[in-house]
Every structure is written in C-alpha cells, then in structure tokens.
C-alpha cells in the first residue's frame, strides 16, 4: 500500500513539477510556436498529474485527492526526480531537461502498460500517447539546435553538461522500487536504461553533441531530499491553498 503510494507520487510529482516549470515559460518563449508547444506540454503533464496523484490518493485511502497532494504536502513529501525541479535557465536548458526526461518517461510509460494493476496500465496507455509526441518534439529540437549555429550548439552542449548529472537518478532503484518491481506493479528502474541510452546516443550523434563522460548521478529527489530550488517553486505553486486554506476554488 505505502510502496504503491510512493511509486505513484513519484510518477505524479514528476509530471506536476515539470509541468509547473514548463508553465513558467508562458508568454516568454523564443518563438510563438514554442509558446504554444510549451503550454501544450505543460497541459499534458498537469493532466497526467491529475491521474497519477488521483490514483495515489485513492490507494492511500486517507481522503486526499490530487489537489490535496499537490498543494498541501510539504517539500520533503514530494518524490519527483531532481531533474524536473532544475530551474528553466535558457531555452536550451529547458529543452534539454525535457528531452532527458522524455527519454526516460516514454519507455517508463511503455513498461507501465504491462503493470499488474489495471488502473496503472490504463493511465500509462493514455499518457504514453501524449509522451510519444513529447519525445518526438524534444528530440527533433535538440537535433536542430545542436546542429544549428555555433552559438546554439554551444548552448545545447552547455545545457547537456549542466543537466547530465541529473539524468541518472531515474535509473537507480531503492527498496521501494525493488518491491514494486517484484510485485509487477512498476518496472525495475535499471531496466529502462538501455532504451534511454539508445535514444540519447542516437539523438546526440545527430545533434553533434558530446555525451559527458562521467555518469555521476545526483540523487535524493525520489526520497524527498530536494534542491533549494524546490522550496522556491512551492512558495508559488502552493501559495493560494496555503494562504487561504478554507477556500474552495
């Protein structure tokens, strides 16, 4: 029960926090088509958040719905990867963060379609369709900007170097992951690494980007140890629910 709750909040919190970050771009994108695409991505991710956290609340059985989980939990109760809480930086960093996430997210959802829990499989099928489009788009843009001008190449390479240390966390299992995998509820994290590597290697090659040598991975997000950025994000995200706890919206 509690393992499943943790696993589901990991899925939901990734979508929530990344969706939040992406939504910060609204009205500030480098080109109008990207304003639209980024809003669309944020929208998909918020929709997926509703599903995952909704199910998490149901599994928990303590009467918390998706909104309660999103807007009333403390920072240390969030279970998202450190990657998704990284600040937006320039458009290159936002894009690279998205691509690294998508390259894990797509095979993750694919694997979740085979979950022994039908509710998980159903959500994964729905989300998987959206994410198939996300990875197509982010890979394409990484290639175009990696193999664009000298400046766009340099910025994409810098983004890759800044973010690569946050790509590995998703593939490192802890005891919860292991138990969830044994129960057939969710895939073993490390089982997704090969597909991820294949995707990113192919895309980096076409984008003329160099994959960093060190595979050092920052960890902690999945266990609730976040970065300083997370606290600042929550002051915005949870503001109204915290400031006016008696209100309905």
């Amino acid at each position, binding site marked *: 029960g509690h393992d499943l709750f943790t696993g589901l909040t990991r899925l939901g919190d990734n979508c929530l926090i990344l969706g939040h970050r992406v939504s*910060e771009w609204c009205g500030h994108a480098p080109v109008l088509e990207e304003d639209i695409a980024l809003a669309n991505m944020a929208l998909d991710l918020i929709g997926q958040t*509703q599903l995952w956290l909704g199910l998490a609340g149901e599994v928990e059985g303590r009467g918390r719905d998706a909104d309660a989980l999103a807007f009333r939990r403390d920072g240390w109760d969030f279970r998202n990867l450190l990657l998704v809480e990284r600040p937006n930086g320039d458009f290159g960093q936002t894009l690279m963060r998205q691509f690294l996430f998508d390259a894990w997210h797509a095979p993750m959802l694919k694997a979740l379609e085979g979950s022994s829990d039908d509710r998980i499989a159903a959500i994964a099928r729905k989300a998987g369709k959206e994410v198939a489009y996300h990875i197509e788009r982010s890979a394409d843009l990484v290639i175009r900007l990696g193999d664009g001008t000298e*400046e766009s190449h340099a910025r994409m390479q810098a983004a890759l170097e800044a973010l690569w240390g946050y790509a590995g966390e998703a593939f490192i299992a802890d005891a919860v992951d292991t138990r969830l995998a044994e129960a057939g509820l969710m895939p073993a994290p490390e089982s997704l690494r090969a597909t991820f590597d294949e995707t990113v290697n192919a895309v980096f090659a076409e984008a003329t980007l160099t994959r960093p040598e060190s595979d050092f991975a920052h960890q902690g997000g999945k266990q609730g140890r976040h970065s300083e950025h997370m606290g600042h994000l929550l002051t915005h995200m949870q503001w109204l629910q915290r400031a006016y706890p008696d209100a309905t919206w």
Partner: protein
Amino acid sequence: PEKLAAFQARIDAGERIEPKDWMPEGYRKTLIRQIGQHAHSEIVGQLPEGNWITRAPTLERKAILLAKVQDEAGHGLYLYCAAETLGISRDELTEQLLSGKMKYSSIFNYPTLTWADIGAVGWLVDGAAIMNQVPLQRTSFGPYARAMVRICKEESFHQRQGYDLIRKMAEGTPEQKAMAQDALNRFWYPSLMMFGPSDKDSVHSTQSMAWKIKINTNDELRQKFVDQTVPQAEFLGLTIPDENLKWNEDKGGYDFSEPDWNEFYEVLKGNGPCNADRMEARTRAWRDGAWVRDGLMAHARKQATRRVAAE
C-alpha cells in the same frame, strides 16, 4: 478611381475581399494596423494571465488557464497569418510592436493582482473582446473574417470559464468575495474603455465602416456590453462601481458613467500601470530567443543543402 468604385461596390454587395484581389492602399494599411494590433494584443495578453499560471490554486484551474493562454497564442498565430496575406511578415510586425510603432489593446496594461482577476479578465475583458469581434466575423477581408470565426468560438468558451471562476470566488469565503468585488472594481472601467472613445471623437471610424472593417460604432457596442454585464454582476451579488448606473426604460438599456478618458490617453501614451513591464517582458523574450530562431534557421539551411547534395 474606377477601381475604387468597383471595390466599394463589391464590399457593399457583401462580397469578401481576398488577398490576391486588388485593394486600395488605405484599406490594406488600415487592415494591417488593425489585424496586427489585434495579433499583438493576443500575444501581450498572455502576460497578465500567465502571471497567475504558477499560482493557480487547483490542478483543474491550472489546466484551464494554461489552455486559455495557449489559445491566445494560437489566436496570435492565425492573426499574424492573416496579416501576412497582406504582405507584412510576422517578424516585421513584431519589430513594430517592440519599437512602440504598433500598439496592443490597452487593457493588458492593467495588472492581475489577485486570483479573482483571472476570472474578471475572462468575464469582462473577453466579454468585451467578443462584443467587438462577433461583428468582425462579417468583415470584408476574407482571411480576417475567417480567423474571427474561429477566435470567437474559443473566446466565448473562455468567457464562460472566467465567469465560472469569479462565481466561485463570489460565493466563497469573505476574502474570496472581497477579491471578486475588488477585481470588478478595477476592471470595470478599463473594460468599458476597450470599445474606444465615443465615435464622435474617433477619426478613422467613417472610412472603416464604409469598408466594413468596422461594423458597429463604439458606443453601440459599449452599451450592449453594459446591458449584458449588469445582470451577470447582479447574479453574482457583486456591485458595479458606478453610482450612476440605472436602467433606462426609454432606451431599453442602462445609463452608466463614462470611463475616465484621461486615464485612457495616459495608458495609451505609455503611462499605464504595466506598459513598461509588458514591453520589457516581450522584448526580453524576443532578444533572449534570438539564438533559438537563428539556430532553427541555420539547421533548416543545412538540411536543404544536404538534400541538394544528396540528389
């Protein structure tokens, strides 16, 4: 002159003018100005609402607001495309916006200060916009009229969502009610200003109406808006901030106070609460995004070269 008469005859007959058709230079210029300004308004209009996306209080409200702002960007896109058929590029239009040569709707120079403002923008600002735009579905220039059909449909959806949001606030805790009333207080007169000064003070109106670029007078539309909105406010239990507001049986509409036109002209001059912030945000987005646009162009050129080489 003959051409001109024929052109006017087509318009009078209710025909649509299409991009390849002959048109007078003034018609083209007026349309570019009007469509461009409208497109810019959609783009700048993302900002006051975007201001609350990261603070939306529920996941559903966040999704609704995201979808709305996305629609606005989409409207901007249709309209820039419509303007492009008149021979001006999106980049040229953008540069005219950023240099201050072209304007956007002054309403977006007002701030969104509480969550209720997001409701007020939907209810009042989109409400006024629709009032302006519905007749434009019958405007004489084809691409513009068709863009308007699509836009109006989405806008009226936004307006209902805005009304629903502010209704929740008006029915909520005392703080929420206060926010709702405060939002109405601050957005009422700026919304009335959206129809522009009285037509008797407006220079371009006569020609634009003859060309069917403009269909109704500003005062007609403003009256219609007030008549539609007052009962909605009453239903919410909110008070329109106008002591002179009164039903006038004779004219079958409300009497109401004029907005402060001095304020209108100050905002137009750049002295609104947010003019500088809005332009700074757009200028920064444009400037910081230059490397992305350049990178995409460079890649496209490389690809084209590679294709040729491979042939």
